[in-house]
């Protein structure tokens, strides 16, 4: 899903596919289908090939508007208009853990395989066609399935699949180049030459890089690619043979995807934080758990919670178990990958995103409007923000005063903030301080924090709103609008 800017019909959100254009209008997600996309829309909506995926909730809910409804939406006269159920918190590949990119790749291949069984094809294979609702990947692009030439044994989107799924996974797992770096600069993924460069002078000649990027990079220089007709469709002996080839190609891609996905699981500076490197005494941790549980219990079931600096997601999972929808953010891709796997295993409504709260991603793509920035998507979306043991990192590592942090948090939440303050007496705080004088003199927890936007993150002193454990202080604050 992509945004290109305001138009008369609303905010245009997709313009690359000539088959149709996507737009946001009054909170509704509408897709105007052009003549080129009509057959694609029919295949997506009516052909039985995608029924299995639809039943398991892996295709975005889509319906065709009647003429009267299209007229009412200001799109009268258009040949066909579809409406998609919007994903409540959109996320993009640069914010995913590699495990999430792998899952999106699996879903893309499943759609391609289902289409092939019905004699159709998938015309593009990009992670931008997939979004997450909690841990569940959902395929969004209603115009991606297209009629296929029965004798054509090539999948046109295979190169795109390789560049946007396999290459970023290989780069993340084996070259130390994260998805943020890969997609932040290269929306369509790296070229074979770039991946070969990242692999280095020796590894590029070894599997998996040899077949993945080195040979294709060498073939880029072949004279054949300059021949007339090189890019045109091909025919083989029979439809049966073409299908045989495509089925095996897709199976091969799946094998490669699984092999590369297996290489991304690792350790990081923060992956042991909630385990062997835990900083809490057992009784302190139990008291903190009880305090956070009580605070989350004040929310209505189905409330939206943002967990900032979630680490392995102890409190994200707790909130999801209590029936809330959680977006968990952390700058560490390894811990977000593990949280994703855990949420998926337990089928809990947690969307883990690799986002540095001190430097959140902005808008990207054409005009910086194809994907909205994180803060734009998050503003006013949450009933509760958890800021547990993260304030001192923002203050000491990033140099952001507590007032600034609270001002931002006050814009994200509509109801509550749970903050854990770690003071200068704490060993972890002193470790981060590295002999410096504290910037903010620990003023954050002392007063109400008034934001320029007119919202106040109010400190309350009821006994149940404050918990002191060792050198840490937890507060449950409410947000009020002046």
């Amino acid at each position, binding site marked *: 899903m992509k945004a290109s800017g305001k138009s008369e019909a609303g905010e245009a959100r997709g313009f*690359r*596919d*000539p088959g149709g254009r996507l737009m946001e209008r009054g909170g509704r997600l509408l897709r105007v289908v052009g003549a080129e996309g009509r057959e694609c829309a029919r295949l997506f909506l009516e052909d039985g090939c995608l029924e299995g995926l639809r039943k398991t909730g892996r295709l975005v809910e889509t319906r065709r508007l009647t003429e009267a409804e299209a007229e009412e939406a200001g799109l009268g006269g258009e040949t066909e208009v579809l409406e998609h159920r919007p994903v409540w918190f959109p996320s993009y590949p640069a914010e995913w853990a590699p495990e999430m990119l792998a899952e999106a790749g699996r879903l893309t291949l499943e759609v391609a395989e289902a289409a092939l069984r019905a004699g159709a094809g998938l*015309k*593009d*294979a990009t992670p931008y066609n997939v979004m997450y609702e909690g841990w569940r990947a959902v395929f969004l692009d209603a115009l991606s399935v297209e009629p296929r*030439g029965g*004798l*054509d*044994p*090539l*999948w*046109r*989107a*295979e*190169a*795109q699949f*390789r*560049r946007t799924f396999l290459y970023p996974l290989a780069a993340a797992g084996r070259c130390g180049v994260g998805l943020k770096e890969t997609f932040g600069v290269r929306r*369509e993924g790296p070229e*074979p030459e770039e991946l070969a460069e990242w692999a280095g002078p020796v590894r590029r000649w070894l599997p998996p890089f040899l*077949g993945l990027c080195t*040979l*294709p*990079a*060498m*073939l*880029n*220089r*072949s004279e*054949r*690619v300059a021949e007339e*007709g*090189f*890019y*045109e*469709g*091909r*025919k*083989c*002996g029979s439809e*049966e*043979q073409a299908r*045989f*080839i495509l089925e*095996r*190609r897709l199976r*091969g891609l799946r094998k490669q995807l699984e092999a590369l996905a297996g290489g991304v699981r690792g350790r990081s500076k923060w992956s042991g934080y909630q385990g062997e490197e835990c900083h809490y005494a057992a009784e302190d941790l139990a008291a903190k758990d009880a305090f956070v549980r009580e605070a989350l219990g004040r929310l209505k079931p189905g409330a939206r919670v943002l967990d900032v600096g979630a680490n392995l997601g102890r409190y994200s999972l707790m909130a999801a178990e209590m029936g809330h929808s959680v977006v968990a953010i952390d700058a560490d891709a390894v811990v977000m990958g593990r949280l994703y796997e855990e949420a998926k295993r337990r089928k809990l409504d947690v969307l883990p995103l690799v986002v540095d709260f001190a430097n959140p991603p902005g808008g990207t793509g054409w005009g910086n409007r194809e994907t909205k920035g994180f803060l734009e998507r998050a503003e006013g979306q949450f009933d509760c923000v958890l800021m547990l043991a993260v304030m001192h990192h923002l203050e000491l590592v990033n140099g952001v005063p507590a007032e600034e942090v609270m001002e931002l948090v006050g814009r994200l939440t509509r109801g509550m903030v749970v903050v854990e303050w770690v003071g200068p007496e704490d060993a972890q705080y002193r470790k981060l301080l590295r002999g410096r004088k504290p910037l903010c003199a620990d003023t954050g927890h002392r007063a109400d924090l008034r934001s320029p936007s007119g919202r106040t993150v109010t400190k309350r002193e009821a006994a149940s709103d404050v918990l002191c454990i060792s050198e840490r202080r937890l507060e449950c604050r409410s947000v009020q609008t002046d």
Partner: protein
Amino acid sequence: MAAVVLLGAATARPAYGYTDPGSGLLLWQMVGAAAVGSLFYVKRLLRWLSPKKKTEKDEGQREE
């Protein structure tokens, strides 16, 4: 055999669409497809060379 399968044989239709098919990656895909396409004939040959299995299968179908 690969030559029979080789995909440069005939033009089916122009490659429309907005998806970048790659250059070296497309050629690499063609090489892979030619190899898999050869396997298709090998499998067909093996099936043809194993009449016993075929007969048993046919008999089973006839009984049904």
